[in-house]
């Protein structure tokens, strides 16, 4: 993905030291390491550090997300938290709208990882993803129209899994309820490919539900979707529709 650069780069020695620390940080040495980080990045290189954490670490090292979350807590810097969310959001959008994502499974893996990461930053902490930053229902609708569900649904799945431990983001929450009913509609549509249906089922499962427990919306059926080479749907369902109606 392209770079997001409106920050000051630290001198090489500082960057090297941070790389070294981040290659060696664990739960057991979190406290001393985090103060070493704080001493080096505050306040000038905070945006650089946030960018490094999102691009080089969170996007690629899903196995250490919990560790990096506790690092963020340990650093306890509100500005850093704000920057992390903003930076993550930026790259999520770049990937959501990139052309490569349909071809490159690596890019999809990055987007999925950033989904988990964003979910941990927001929903898991009982904080919303603001619709002015990322309007999830709209993201799903656009993906439906443009044949990009194969990349977008796994991202939405990982993101919403952040709600699992939330007190606020339960199925009764209006934001969650809206998304679930949209997904229920999508799930009920004929010819949706197995992997897409499966992603949706996993989302419901994260809330302890199944797609049949929720009343489907009727927002998708009025929308048109890409007909030619749409990877989200089984081939025969596309052909049947071409052969003209019931």
């Amino acid at each position, binding site marked *: 993905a392209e770079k997001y650069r409106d920050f000051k780069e630290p001198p090489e020695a500082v960057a090297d030291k941070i*790389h070294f620390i981040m*290659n*060696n940080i*664990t*739960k057991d040495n979190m406290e001393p390491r985090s103060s070493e980080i704080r001493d080096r990045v505050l306040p000038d290189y905070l945006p650089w550090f946030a960018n490094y954490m999102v691009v080089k670490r969170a996007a*690629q090292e899903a196995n*250490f997300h919990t*560790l990096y979350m506790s690092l963020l807590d340990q650093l306890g810097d509100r500005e850093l938290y704000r920057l992390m969310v903003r930076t993550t959001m930026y790259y999520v959008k770049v990937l959501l709208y990139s052309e490569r994502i349909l071809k490159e499974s690596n890019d999809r893996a990055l987007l999925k990882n950033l989904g988990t990461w964003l979910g941990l930053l927001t929903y898991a902490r009982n904080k919303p993803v603001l619709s002015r930053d990322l309007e999830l229902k709209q993201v799903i609708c656009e993906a439906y129209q443009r044949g990009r569900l194969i990349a977008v649904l796994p991202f939405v799945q990982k993101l919403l899994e952040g709600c699992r431990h939330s007190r606020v983001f339960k199925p009764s929450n209006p934001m969650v309820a809206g998304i679930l009913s949209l997904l229920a509609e999508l799930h009920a549509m004929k010819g949706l490919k197995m992997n897409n249906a499966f992603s949706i089922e996993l989302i419901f499962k994260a809330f302890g539900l199944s797609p049949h427990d929720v009343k489907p919306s009727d927002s998708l059926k009025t929308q048109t979707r890409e007909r030619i080479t749409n990877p989200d749907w089984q081939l025969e369902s596309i052909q049947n529709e071409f052969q003209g109606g019931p």
Partner: protein
Amino acid sequence: IINLMEELTLKGVTQFYAFVEEKQKVHCLNTLFSKLRINQSIIFCNSVNRVELLAKKITELGYSCYYIHAKMLQSHRNRVFHDFRNGHCRNLVSSDLFTRGIDIQSVNVVINFDFPKNAETYLHRVGRSGRFGHLGLAVNLITYDDRINLFKIEQELGTEIKPIPAQIEEKLYCI
């Protein structure tokens, strides 16, 4: 003897060597840890004794590392390996105790602190089983005495180990 080598592959693994003197090795390791993005790494030495010495040395330098070698009790080895796999520590200093390659997804860097003497050992350390096509980086610290083995192993495995560049492109070993 069963030949297990055929099941291991160097596909997806980018291999480099750094020409060093014995006493520069730890310094070289420091440089690698300051320049690379390492999820988890395995650092190989050629003897049990050197495993323990290196692990002690680099722990003092602030590395997060465990060590594992052939002379440890099986139960201890299991414990260390299990904890490493679960990410309790980031780096593992190891001797050649594995009969098959190590396939831990999160290990994206393997460092041969001591270069192995034969191709089979090299492949077991660096190779991955072909089913998991994830990317990896192998860095070999080569001393003057290792130069002949380096050539021999390259020939036998039909692979190319290039000198390490100043900058390693991340896409070679990261997703």
